[in-house]
């Protein structure tokens, strides 16, 4: 299938890319691996008149560690992250998340980490062909004013953020660098997400993501990513969770839990930290309670936006939360000395 015409730009350096963004603003889109964008263009969901390819920007495709951070360029391919050896023992949660994206031949060799974080929200009523959508009214996300995913309709868009890397990276307190022609800012990753279904990212039209900074593991901390799917590959998550747990060797001193694939953006469950703090690390009752809290918090967001029933997904938030927290805790307790951790 051919796509509607657009201009293709292949800037030679970041400055040129940012200049193009500055000039053409909202009519253009950044093209990374294209594994999300092309499908949307084919379905008529994205109709940019200009694409700015990141393929020739080696400065965005490097991984390095400095000042206690793992710095990943936005255009780093998922496969390159998997191949970066230290991630296996230092950031295993990130490994789990990246590995779970789609299927290798589809996503890992073309798809990028930046594209994964910046992919638009999804919904079973929206991510369909033009023909499919034509038979209904235009929904909020497509510029209309109704929502099929919300029982009884809604004036908000209830699409979901399906990025698998977002929950774990936010749980690990990752920061991102965003650049425009005139400005550069580094912010917590969670601030990238607006929680507005119609426009889920806070990026301005002339801005792009350039780098992700993941803090190195500290002694006594561990992270884990859990993703529930019906098949072993290709599937987007039914529910996902990124967990970060820090212990002093016996008690939990800090915990973060981010639920993915249920809400308009990654969903931070604030209550979990309070619940786990100062409790014995791995205490089952505490983790159970955290699971319930996550479920209760998520419940208000879960819409009929994927093919699995709302009720089931709600229940699964608790299960996936518990599994992610348990594994993160286990890792935390075995990683008391990071330099030796392997």
């Amino acid at each position, binding site marked *: 299938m*051919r796509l509607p015409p657009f201009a293709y730009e292949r800037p030679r350096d970041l400055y040129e890319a940012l200049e193009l963004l500055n000039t053409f603003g909202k009519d253009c889109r950044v093209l990374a691996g294209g594994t999300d964008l092309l499908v949307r263009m084919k379905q008529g969901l994205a109709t940019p008149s200009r694409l700015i390819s990141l393929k020739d920007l080696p400065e965005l495709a490097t991984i390095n560690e400095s000042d206690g951070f793992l710095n990943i360029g936005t255009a780093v391919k998922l496969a390159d992250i998997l191949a970066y050896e230290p991630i296996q023992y230092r950031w295993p949660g990130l490994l789990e998340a990246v590995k779970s994206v789609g299927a290798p031949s589809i996503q890992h060799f073309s798809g990028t980490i930046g594209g994964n974080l910046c992919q638009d929200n999804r919904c079973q009523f929206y991510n369909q062909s033009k*023909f*499919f959508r034509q038979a209904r009214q235009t929904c909020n996300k497509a510029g209309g004013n109704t929502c099929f995913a919300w029982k009884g309709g809604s004036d908000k868009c209830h699409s979901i953020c399906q990025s698998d890397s977002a929950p774990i990276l936010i749980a690990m307190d990752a920061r991102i660098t965003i650049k425009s022609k005139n400005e550069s800012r580094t912010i917590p990753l969670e601030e990238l997400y607006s929680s507005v279904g119609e426009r889920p990212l806070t990026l301005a039209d002339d801005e792009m993501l350039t780098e992700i900074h993941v803090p190195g593991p500290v002694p006594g901390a561990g992270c884990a990513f859990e993703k*529930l799917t019906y098949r072993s590959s290709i599937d987007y998550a039914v529910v996902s969770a990124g967990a970060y747990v820090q212990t002093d060797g016996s008690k939990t001193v800090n915990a973060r839990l981010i639920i993915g694939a249920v809400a308009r953006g990654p969903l931070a469950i604030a209550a979990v930290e309070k619940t786990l703090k100062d409790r014995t690390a791995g205490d089952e009752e505490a983790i159970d309670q955290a699971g319930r809290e996550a479920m209760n918090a998520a419940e208000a967001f879960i819409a009929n936006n994927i093919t*699995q*029933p709302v009720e089931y997904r709600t229940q699964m938030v608790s299960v996936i939360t518990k599994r992610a927290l348990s594994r993160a805790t286990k890792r935390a307790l075995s990683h008391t000395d990071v330099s030796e951790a392997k």
Partner: protein
Amino acid sequence: MQTVLYVTDDQERKGNKEIMEEFTVIGKRISKVDAVDKATGRALYIQDFKLPGMLYGKILYSKYPHARIIRVNTEKAKALPGVITVLTGEDIPPVRLGVYKDNPPLKAGKVRSYRDEVAAVAATDLETAREAINLIEVTYEAVPAIFDPEEALKPEAPLVHENHKTNLLKMPWNLHYGDVEAAKIEAAFNVEERFSTTWVTHCCMGTSGAIADFDHADNLTVYTNTQIPSLAQKDFQETLKVLGFKDKRVRVIKPCIGGGFGSKLDTYAYEHVAILLAWRSRRPVKIVFEREEEFCATSPRQPTVTYISMGCDKEGKLLYRDMSMVLDNGAYTSWGATTPSVMMMPITSLYRVPNVRYNAKCVYTNNTYSQAMRGYGNPQATFAIESAMDMLAEAAGIDRVEFRRINSNQPGDVTPQGLKITTCGLPECIEAVSRDLEFGRPREKGVGVGLASLIHVGGGARIYKSDGCGTIIKMDDYGKVDVFTGASDMGQGADTIIAQIVAEELGVKVEDVHVFHQDTDICPWDVGAHASRTTFVAGNSALGAARKIRHRLLNMASETTGIDEDKLTLKNRAFFADGKQVLPIGKLLRGSHFKPRGEMMMADNFYDPPNENMGRDFSGNMSATYSFGTHGVRVKVDEATGKVEILDYIAAHDVGRAINPMLLDGQVHGGVLMGVGYALTEQVILENGRNMNPDFRDYKILTAMDAIHSKAVVIETVDEQGPFGAKGIGEPGCVPTAPAIANAIYDAIGVRIKDLPITPEKVLAAIKKKNGAVSCGIDAFTQKEQPCE
């Protein structure tokens, strides 16, 4: 009759010497004859064909599940540069498709499902055709629609076809053998239950497509993906007749097919639309489906609601089986409506059961219309029967394996429906599974085992008046063999099996045999690739033709060499006497061509198996032999998420003889994984008739990472009727999978899921219900209470 056991998995051969005779190609793991073309990308599928001057066709489908068409405005589409022809239902003569002739290729007046074809465009390129479709304006007036077949039977339900007066198809599938009511009184143990299955679709990797091309004299050539070239030819001929062309030729050319599984058992609107567009534009027209169309506009396996009751005596002998079914036919009628004819077979004849009653209703709804899919109804029926078998065994307090042993079919049985069981490896299949799966192994939490068996037609199936297939064989100057068969290959390897059979009989190598099956102008007649009949029927047909040639060859060789015919053997491309080569076949043939009053080597054969049409009471020996099998599975259930993992899988099949064990394994492994999808993950989600998951993200066929270690065990019973003893095996692999898995889940966690697919949410809801939870959740789509159990 001889029953000989040959279990290939442990390479142990038992029994009769006769079958130990040395074959050179039969029974060997021979590569598919088309494999190199496919491995090098040279094989041509419908997608790959282009004819000079060819136009691209596109179809506009309905926006409503049930509506009157008030107006169709095609002006803008016609004005688009590059558009050659636009057709609507009003522009075409009354062509009608399907078993009931209730389906026009383009609809006028009314649409009855989202899948209804409303208009079509032919343009010089695909993009233009696509754009033109979007420019057609249709005004509809929606009318009340009906989607639930049980609801559709109520008197107040809207009618899908007003002329038909009722939504119930007039196909009375009713049978009663013995006396079920009396047996119910007599039975010591009874079970009664409701089961349901859902829409699943074939998901051929190569999408559907056709090219229609008229010559100057209005003869028609159709290149199409079909499993039924000869019957398709007839359908297209009828369309020509309606167009006013009498006495014209129709030629059907079949490219490589990217998977069949029953989807290509009928001709469809798109093929006839291509013909109509070609007729109007006087140019070849190609229509190829996009994946979304493949999901929405091809005919899936239909859902069923089954009520079953079954009882046995104190010793565990089955006394009766009583089943009734409602089938969602959808808006039009294809072979899906006739699947009860095959469901009858397991219902009356899977295990010995003296009293049987069955009734099935096919019902029009405003859903997509149904087609047969691998097993032709058998998977739906077997799901209910084999689930109920476990329930009855439990009620009777008899071990599940033992219960099946007690009731197993045996060679020589004649079932209540009149099926004559000749060879029967079912007892051996049950043994193989129970031994291999270690049913008695100590229990682990959340882990369980289950088994289920199957019976299927293995020697053709007399659905039409004929169950025949023709073959022509000719040999050239060099001893090379051309086989023209009516059979269809859609990837399963029919051409390879036929080449092996012919090569074995003629003492040549498989690579000396070229099998033509792609062209009705060249190949003889056949009723189509269905009912796992190809190896048996087309194989026998080819074998018969090869025998004639062999006979003639020996005859001539004897004349030429002066050696007695019965002293000559034919192998390795030559005649042998006393272990020494006396004459190469090629030399003999050249001699016969280059001599006064020479002759050529050619033979034909039409084979129609010794099976019977069903009588008025549906009894009759529909197949010349029957295939049996038992599947066993060990599952692990994640009780927190409801996900089911398959740990071990064993599939034992009585195949008569494995002509090519490698292709046989392939049929079994492929059937099993398709069956696992049917059991656990696959489901066409229709929301008020609209397909909600027309893609591989949400229609979950299993991936390489979900592939299971299925172990295929082959039981060879060497059937007297089969070519070299073989029976059909195309479909059985996916028949007992779902009930085997459902039974294993019950064994693992004590909940029985009676509605397919067994998704995690259903398993979890059932666990909760068992543990005393009140609500089992609301189904997101139906907004109804989830069927907990």
